[in-house]
């Protein structure tokens, strides 16, 4: 009897979860209507600095262990903010570039395809990087270098500019990146 009740409860939760996921399957219309208002500026150099191994080694050598762990946690917390911001920007750009993939202009379609591809990769790296950064916050001594996010973000920036030149007039996208 208990197992049956547990299964029924799990099934009900699964149904609710499915409906919730299906309801929010797209970014809200306001985000897509005015993406520039939702894209947040990201200082890639500052992010690189936060996850720079040399910087980390320097702090490790200069600070007492307790102070280093505290500072390192703060740095990683800031890095998490950067990564989630980059991932959010990637999600918005991905949806915007999706329209470009069906463009009749081959150059626009190709640029959009590359942007979609890169934005997906950035989301993958971000997922991976977040896990590593949180792990680093738990174990501040561990060496965590999620640099691929920065590289991928820069590449995506270039592709946005290219696609924007070909298709999007949105001033804010270029300005934000």
């Amino acid at each position, binding site marked *: 009897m208990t197992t049956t009740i547990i299964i029924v409860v799990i099934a009900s939760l699964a149904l609710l979860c499915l409906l919730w*996921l299906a309801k929010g399957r797209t970014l809200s219309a306001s985000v897509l209507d005015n993406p520039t208002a939702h894209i947040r500026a990201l200082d890639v150099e500052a992010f690189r600095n936060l996850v720079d191994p040399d910087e980390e080694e320097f702090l490790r050598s200069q600070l007492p262990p307790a102070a280093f762990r505290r500072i390192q946690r703060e740095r990683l917390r800031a890095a998490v903010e950067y990564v989630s911001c980059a991932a959010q920007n990637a999600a918005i750009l991905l949806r915007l570039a999706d329209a470009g993939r069906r463009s009749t202009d081959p150059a626009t379609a190709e640029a959009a395809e590359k942007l979609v591809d890169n934005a997906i990769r950035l989301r993958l790296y971000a997922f991976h990087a977040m896990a590593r950064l949180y792990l680093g916050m738990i174990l501040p001594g561990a060496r965590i270098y999620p640099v691929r996010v920065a590289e991928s973000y820069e590449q995506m920036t270039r592709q946005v*500019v290219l696609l924007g030149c070909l298709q999007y007039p949105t001033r804010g996208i270029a300005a934000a990146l």
Partner: protein
Amino acid sequence: MTVSYLLGYYLWVGPHVLLGAILFAMIRRKVYPQFPMFFLYTAFEILQFAVLFTISRSHVHFGESYVRVYSVGLAVSTAIRFAVIHELFRHFFRSYPALDLPGRYLFRGLTVVLLLVATGVAVSAPGNSASFLLNITYALDRTASVMQCGLLISLFIFSRYFALSWRSNAFGIALGLGIFASVELATSAIWLHLGAFGNRAVNLLTMATYHCCVLIWMFYLMRPEREAQQAPKTLPKYDLDIWNQELQRLLQR
């Protein structure tokens, strides 16, 4: 004839008539090459209904033969539903080459994990029915429902995390299957616990859910395919200063 009896008949016959309309629409709109497994599933459901309905009207009524045909039909239908889910995964990840490989690993990994979970549930809670056939049927149905529900929820989570757009007919198929799988998970567990075939309330709940799912499939497969993404509404008016600044910034790197 009571209202419950009439409702039961409507919920049994109605969805299959609508499935016929879906089948016709898929052929007419040439959607079936995109979703051959869903097409097969729809056709099989109609065939299964025709056979079961004929048996129920004959002298056999809802006897042992009916249960046997029902069990075999359920097994085949469940297998085709797995093929439909695999088709949805393939259809979805094919649109995004960067996700093709992770998507394949996700499908395989999840299938193994969910199979282990479902097997664990099947071992820990066997059925109470005296009939071996019914026990096996409902236990397999429950196992399959766990897996189908898990796979479809994972697909929705995956698409949501990556902010990917669905083609609306694929979304409709996945949503309908997901709803049916989650309700069938609950009802198969109840059936297995009751150990009896044809509990009225549970039957009505399952049939009503299936009717809703068929309506969802109808809605998404019959309406015109929308552009999955909003396109910019205005024509480009290039801001040369901004593009120039960006170009200079890139050249400085």
